[in-house]
């Protein structure tokens, strides 16, 4: 991946994708806000979406991408952006809700049928998403895949698309911000999350001890610690959001009996 032309290719590819994501979303918001019977699309979600797209893309284009080819520590910073923070911010943008709002009824139905279908249901399942996410990382860093990825452009692109997609799937399987086919119970999601988080933490410490092929020990150690604590930071946000959603849903089941005794 040290070839100039390859960098140009990935810059264009991922840059266009990020640009398209932001443009389409903004167009969706414009369409949605034109409908008078709908509540105005929350501005905060626009901020989430745009920052999510920029943060995800920053791992793949521009200076961070160039640095991450040369230094493992920067690669890990990119990984945090592309696989964790970016997807989380994008998920908070609630793109599916926006899509369902903007599409004509007929097509919206088709989308929601797809989301309820077997295919989508399989991938949004917390266990599938966790295995794809954490399992993929184990594969990447404990086999020769990491070294190979830097020799083959197509593999590089594929791996990064996987890291991003798996991160996004995992986030939405934990936080049901958008409408999904099936909501899993909070205890179930909690257990899956703890195991996934543990898998991520264990891999970080494993990389500290056994650096991937061709990575200098010092870089691997700094990268592993960044992965460990950075992962913690993002996961802490997801945990808080997960429990907040539980707190709210438990609140709707509370019926408040007015207090008879004056305070």
């Amino acid at each position, binding site marked *: 991946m040290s070839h100039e032309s390859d960098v140009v290719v990935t810059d264009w590819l991922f840059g266009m994708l990020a640009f398209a994501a932001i443009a389409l979303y903004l167009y969706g918001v414009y369409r949605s806000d034109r409908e008078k019977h709908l509540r105005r699309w929350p501005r905060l979600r626009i901020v989430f979406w745009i920052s999510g797209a920029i943060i995800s893309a920053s791992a793949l284009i521009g200076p961070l991408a160039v640095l991450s080819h040369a230094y493992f520590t920067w690669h890990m910073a990119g990984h945090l952006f592309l696989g964790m923070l970016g997807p989380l911010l994008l998920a908070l943008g609630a793109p599916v809700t926006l899509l369902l709002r903007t599409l004509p009824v007929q097509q919206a139905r088709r989308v929601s049928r797809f989301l309820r279908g077997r295919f989508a249901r399989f991938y949004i399942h917390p266990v599938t998403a966790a295995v794809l996410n954490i399992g993929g990382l184990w594969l990447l860093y404990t086999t020769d895949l990491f070294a190979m990825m830097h020799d083959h452009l197509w593999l590089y692109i594929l791996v990064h698309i996987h890291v991003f997609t798996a991160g996004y799937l995992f986030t939405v399987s934990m936080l049901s911000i958008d409408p999904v086919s099936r909501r899993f119970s909070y205890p179930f999601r909690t257990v899956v999350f703890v195991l996934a988080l543990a898998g991520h*933490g264990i891999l970080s410490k494993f990389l500290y001890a056994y650096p991937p092929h061709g990575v200098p020990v010092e870089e691997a150690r700094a990268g592993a610690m960044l992965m460990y604590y950075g992962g913690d930071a993002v996961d802490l946000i997801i945990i808080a959001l997960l429990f907040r959603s539980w*707190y709210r849903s438990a*609140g709707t089941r509370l019926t408040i009996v007015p207090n008879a005794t004056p305070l």
Partner: protein
Amino acid sequence: MQRKPVTNWANRKKFQTKNLWAGILFGLGFVAFVDETVFHQLLHWHKFYDKSTVALGLVSDGLFHAFSWFATVGALYLVADLRRRDALWHKVFWGGKLIGGGAFQLYDGTIQHKVMRIHQIRYDVDLVPYDVVWNGSAVVMIAAGLLLLRSANQDARGTKQVEPRVA
């Protein structure tokens, strides 16, 4: 005219176990957090990764670390939930905190340090005083927690029942 709010014993008793679990989880998470921040990050007494680590130790350490975040955040949401139900019972909550914190410390001090030898409290010093303080304080915490729970149960017995405000 201001009157002291009535203590909602009915709700407290109904959610006693939840109070206890909120405390245990928070205690667990808190002690794990203090261990990480004070001993790893500030004092550097033990490190991010110690060479003696076996695979099982790494897994157990990772699981506990992951669980500790969940425990801390989850416990605080449980407390918020108990509060809005007018059922927060501080004595039970604190009892749980001490038990949970003590239990984690005892587990860390005996199983992780001694049995699995993941890491020690310090290196290149005589470990005995450190181990005694570490595990001794854990036992004291657990005992204090149990005493608090007993005292809470005594408070609850014989108190007049107050109609729950929140069903």
